[in-house]
């Protein structure tokens, strides 16, 4: 506090100097590329050439060409399905872990529940292929039980994609909901019981609303990560029905149409932003 003005000034300059590398990195390799991509989405590819004329053609094409628009619809359907199923499966698990498992076992149980989280993304989808594909574990099991006569394949369809996603996001949601549940003081529930609420009513009117932030944070993360993922649908979903990230990659890999791919990526970002705005209310509660 004895700093004289000149020294104070230099401290502030120094602070900016410390901040600068991270700041420049984020601008150069995150914001600038996004801006360039935004600009690209307004250009067109004609033949093999890039035409740098500003227009909304790519976006018009997106709404006009049914297979492009359909991939967004597919993506939203799959993502909503995955989010809902994952919350429904994860909540009871998180609740049991927090309320029924003895305190000293909780940590171990939680670590076990999220252990497969650490398999690599590509490998995890491949592992589901081992279970779901023709001749795989599930098909073999059904054969042994005499339920089917011939090997069956459960892979290469929307169901397989959903299973692969749910597997990952159940672990994620269990974490966020558990973290929320253990913060709750048991006195809330006791108060509800004292006021005459049965266990079910106490849960529905007290515990559930209080864990809404944990659910919403997890559900939002699920939505964002799920709708932007290329690997799981590409490995498990097959190519009969494409999701938006697959369509984006197709524009790049097969057609090298970067402007169209950029436009699709911007649309993906817009959808995520809309969902963020819709959830912002709950996401903020958690931060406070």
């Amino acid at each position: 506090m004895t700093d004289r003005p000149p020294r104070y000034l230099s401290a502030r300059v120094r602070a900016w100097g410390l901040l600068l590398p991270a700041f420049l990195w984020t601008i150069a390799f995150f914001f600038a590329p996004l801006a360039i991509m935004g600009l690209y989405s307004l250009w067109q590819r004609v033949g093999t050439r890039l035409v740098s004329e500003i227009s909304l053609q790519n976006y018009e094409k997106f709404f006009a060409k049914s297979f492009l628009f359909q991939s967004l619809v597919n993506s939203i359907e799959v993502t909503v399905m995955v989010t809902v199923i994952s919350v429904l499966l994860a909540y009871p698990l998180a609740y049991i872990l927090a309320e029924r498992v003895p305190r000293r076992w909780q940590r171990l149980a939680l670590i076990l529940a999220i252990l497969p989280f650490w398999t690599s993304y590509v490998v995890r989808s491949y592992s589901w292929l081992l279970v779901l594909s023709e001749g795989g574990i599930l098909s073999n099991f059904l054969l042994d039980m005499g339920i089917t006569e011939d090997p069956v394949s459960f892979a290469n369809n929307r169901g397989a994609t959903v299973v692969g996603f749910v597997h990952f996001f159940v672990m994620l949601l269990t974490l966020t909901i558990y973290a929320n549940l253990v913060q709750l003081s048991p006195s809330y529930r006791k108060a509800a019981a004292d006021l005459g609420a049965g266990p079910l009513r106490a849960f529905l009117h007290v515990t559930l609303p209080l864990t809404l932030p944990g659910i919403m944070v997890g559900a939002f993360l699920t939505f964002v990560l799920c709708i932007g993922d290329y690997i799981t649908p590409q490995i498990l979903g097959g190519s009969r029905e494409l999701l938006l990230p697959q369509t984006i990659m197709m524009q790049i890999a097969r057609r090298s149409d970067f402007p169209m791919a950029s436009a699709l990526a911007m649309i993906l970002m817009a959808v995520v932003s809309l969902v963020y705005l819709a959830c912002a209310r709950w996401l903020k509660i958690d931060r406070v």
Partner: protein
Amino acid sequence: MIHRALPALRAAPVWIYVILIYGFIFLPVGVLVLFSFQGSRVPVPPFNGPSLQWYEAVFTDERMMDALTNSVIVALASSLVSVVLGFLAAYALARHRLPFARVLQGFLTAPLTVSYLIIAMGLLITFNQLGVPKSLLTVGIGHVVINLPLCFAIVYSQMGAHQANIERAARDLGAREWQVLALVTVPMMWPALFAGFFLSVTFSWDEFIIAFMVSRFEVTLPVEIWSMLRTGLNPKTNAVGSFVFLISVATVLLLDFVVFRRKKT
């Protein structure tokens, strides 16, 4: 007797649920690891092992070993850059009253809210436009983009007031600014730096889409595994997948052991 049995009976569905969901969570991983020891050429039942031939196949595969080396280099280098830049930025924002601190904070953590696919595409287009050749360097740059916000957030959240007091004491005792940073702040922040570094390592080690899009001839391990998938179900993929899993778990356990055990004592 009936009174005692009743709660147990009511608890039964709970434990059935727990068993089923743990089964669901562990099924694919169990199958992956089990059939990495498969004796025959396809990783489906019947299991006729155990055999280590597929691990041998992985470790004698030169492309695979190159990819492994690349992955380790990219993971270590990008995590080091991330944690250094993240730490400096966190220090600047936590210790100095800068204008627009909240905005700057949001600015630095913004990449966390965008899909890796979009980050990858932006980088790909930018590198193409500038004529930067795709290489391990570009992959590393991409991984710093995703890990820098993480390191920044972790370190920033751990910078408390009592550490600021110790730094002030060091300054009053005549330490220069860089001495405070290197000899006082870094040792105090060590658990957070360690956590940031190792989380970044696991993220980079597993990352696929950025590595896939901005690399060309030198690829990382997930990209090499991806190209193996074209051959269909293959016990060698199981073996390398199990190996990657083992490394990640070991890293996480190390992190848990070093950082969290330390905190408790």
